[in-house]
């Protein structure tokens, strides 16, 4: 199971599973969720800054995915489609609640075999990054999360955000500059 979690989802298998989900197969849905939820929750947590809201939104993403299963045409990767739904939900959520992501993340550092000081530093740095990312404009935040955190290619990000690749590149460049500026206490002026 652990191996399955780290394995990249196979597109062909996703297509087969989606066809089964469209026919009402709950086991196929269970498998799809198992494959994609960890990355989805990771992305949503980066966007909204709250584990509970991220899980709530991820649940809604899968409900919508299930509803759309019959109409889904495998023109893009399923993972891209899932993030596309997620991003639309995030935008709706902000519009509905009129709020920005929370800056305080419940971040769990994984100390491993690091010393306590090092672990504390990692936590401190992670929190600083999360606070800085929360301050970015929405497009820049989404673009930097998708490229750095989710390791998606520019083309996929452009597809998710429904903009040209050039816009994605611009937002990522601006996001890096802004983060650098916000974290100047750690890294000095750019």
């Amino acid at each position, binding site marked *: 199971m652990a191996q399955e979690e780290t394995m990249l989802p196979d597109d062909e298998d996703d297509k087969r599973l989606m066809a089964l989900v469209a026919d009402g197969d709950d086991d196929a849905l269970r498998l799809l969720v198992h494959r994609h939820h960890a990355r989805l929750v990771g992305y949503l947590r980066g966007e909204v800054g709250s584990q509970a809201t991220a899980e709530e939104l991820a649940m809604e993403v899968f409900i919508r995915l299930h509803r759309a299963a019959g109409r889904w045409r495998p023109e893009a990767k399923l993972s891209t489609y899932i993030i596309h739904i997620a991003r639309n939900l995030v935008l709706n959520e902000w519009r509905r609640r009129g709020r920005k992501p929370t800056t305080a993340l419940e971040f769990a550092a994984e100390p491993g075999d690091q010393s306590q000081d090092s672990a504390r530093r990692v936590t401190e740095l992670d929190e600083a990054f999360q606070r800085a990312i929360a301050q970015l404009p929405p497009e820049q935040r989404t673009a930097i999360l998708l490229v750095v*955190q989710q390791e998606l290619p520019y083309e996929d990000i452009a597809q998710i955000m429904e903009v040209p690749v050039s816009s994605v590149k611009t937002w990522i460049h601006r996001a890096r500059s802004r983060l*650098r500026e916000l974290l100047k206490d750690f890294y000095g002026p750019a």
Partner: protein
Amino acid sequence: MDNANRPSFERDLDASLSRGREVPVVGFAERVVTAVRADRHRRKLIRWSSFATAAAACVVTILLVQSPSEETLNRQTVALVAREESTQLADLLGIVDDLSLLAPVAEKSSIVDVLATPGS
């Protein structure tokens, strides 16, 4: 800390964000399946209730179309009254018709001629 010892911004950004790349949630798939089943059930109920509402609307429309309207009832009442009155009138006219048999048979023109003749 001098600049040479400062950690690389890019490296830390990658490391920090990649730590949050995957957030597995225990039992999440089961929660989703339960939520999807509830959603499926709810949508089925909505479909059936909208079908029942449409069917009820059709029945009401048919009943309304089949039952006479107020205007039709008025027309029918007027027609009935008129038929009753016409029967009474016909009875009366029937007597008059009988009386007409007793009326003197005289031509209008001959009476005028008699009156117009001087010395009559």
